[in-house]
């Protein structure tokens, strides 16, 4: 019983955050990921349509290019990016976030994202 519960707990904590691996696509001389970000500590958090808490200054995915590498990897619009390749993205400026995602010497970025719908889905399954 307790192991079942701990397994469930593990699943819960993992399911609230999803790890997504995106392979960058080469287009001409740019490496693109196929999504757009918004937010940052230097931005106005009140205008973020995806955040629940309007004082959340994190980095959110505002658009996902259809057929791009991000969509293929499972990134969805409205995801909040928590980490990129181990770098924290919750307390960065907009420009710092952009730089961390577009490093020219990296071909793959591993994102840790959290999603509203994930939490809801888990809560539903719990009931």
């Amino acid at each position: 019983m307790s192991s079942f519960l701990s397994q469930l707990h593990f699943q819960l904590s993992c399911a609230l955050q999803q790890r997504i691996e995106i392979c960058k696509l080469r287009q001409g001389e740019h490496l693109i990921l196929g999504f757009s970000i918004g937010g940052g500590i230097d931005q106005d958090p009140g205008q973020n349509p995806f955040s629940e808490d309007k004082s959340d200054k994190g980095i959110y995915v505002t658009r996902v290019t259809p057929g791009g590498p991000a969509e293929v990897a499972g990134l969805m619009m409205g995801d909040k990016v928590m980490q990129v390749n181990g770098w924290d993205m919750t307390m960065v400026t907009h420009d710092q976030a952009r730089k961390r995602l577009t490093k020219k010497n990296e071909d793959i970025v591993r994102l840790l994202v959290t999603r509203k719908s994930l939490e809801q889905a888990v809560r539903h399954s719990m009931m």
Partner: protein
Amino acid sequence: MDTESTYSGYSYYSGRSRGSHRHGERSRDHHKSRSKDGSRSEKSVTINAPPAEPLLGDSSVLGEEVQDDNWGETTTAVTGTSEHSLSQEDIVRITKDLEDSVGLDCRRYFSLTLAVVLGLLVFLTPLAFLALPHLLWPDKLLVCGTACEGLFISVAFKLLILLLAVWALFFRAPRAGLPRVFVFRALLAVLVLLFVVSYWLFYGVRILDSQDENYQGIVQYAVSLVDALLFIHYLAIVLLELRQLQPAFSVCVTRSTDGETRHYNLGQLSIQRAALAIIENYYRDFSVHNPALLTASKSRAAKHLAGLKVYNVDGPGNNAATGLAHSQSRAMIAAAARRRDTNHNELYYEEAEHERRVRKRKARLVVAVEEAFTHIKRMQEEEQKKAPGDVMDPREAAQAIFPSMARSLQKYLRTTRQQHCHSMESIQQHLAFCITNNMTPKAFLESYLNPGPTLQYGRERWLARQWTLVSEASVTSGLKEGAIFLLKCIDFSLVVTTKRIPYIQLSEEFIDPKSHKFVLRLQSETSV
């Protein structure tokens, strides 16, 4: 209905002016109120059981019964607009408007003579103080040295200043006759009298009796008297003029016939002086009272009552007056509710129709007047020599163009029920005035399109001598929070309520000019 029964809560003031009834006024009041209700076509015989009112000044009132048939006798309040004031008036100006001064001259002249006597006493006393020693014991007096003679100059100039100051403050044509004596003036007069009398007493005992030789001391005594009189004059300025300048109360004045309301800020005044200030503002701010505009609502009210006749079969009732009144009103309201009421519909269409008619007439009038004004041209100087034939002065020019606009103006005035406010003579006079001053047709029409303040119209509309102050509190007491009093004219009244201006607490906030800093609100989206 009964305009008088609404005042049942107020007691009419009485007393002092009982002796000065103006009988002419009373009969005029009777006649007016009688004719007013004679014109109402259908009057239901409602039995009023008014509470016992302390209506004073009319002996017939005390015998008033429940059957209020002779209510015409009871409407008169004592008109106390006597010309009573303690100011030192210019005698010449008293004799204006003789017809209303029947029976009051004695009171006015009494106060005038009192004031003149007091003034003479005040001015002649220092001179008497200075002159009497020379007359009574000239040989014993010490010679007046330089300092003493210097004091003569000082006395002379101070008396001159006092004379000018008294002239400025008191020698003014009285602007109103108040019902009761002006308390501050009376107090000041008494103070001055006491003061001068006490100086005379001292002078008589210590100087005249003992025949003091020190003339310089006497002169200094006279100078001190004049100084003190100047200080009393300063006190008079403060009490009479300065104290009421700072606003302390806000009064709300409503006309009872059409509800027009204004608010004024007044200082700390007695009720009668506040009433005076309000009436003077009334003449400036309120539009002229036009009884013709109220006939529509009166006819509606008459129609309401026409269907119902209520009789009291129990005779002059001993039952509780309120119980009787309650049952009567309940019966009437129930009956009215049962009747199918389409009055609001009629009112709406009637008003819309009237609006339309007024606008049409106004359009015709404006066009006619503009056309009439084009026939007139101001003649220039050079032309005067060339064509001396057809030259007119403003009156003739007005008479020349008046016929072309007379008809449309008359029709417009009739539609807006203003025709009795303007006589043909006054219209022509106004037209001549506008032509002389190069006014446009629109400026000429302005006084006919919008009703102006009362002073704009002829003297017979002013009714300046018909005001009555109706107040529960004594009229010489000061204004207080929540004081209510009435200013009654012949067929309307002004209801005045008082409120104190709130105590304002103002706090300060300092903003450093360097603290005005701004940042941009960014919301950028970057694609990666």
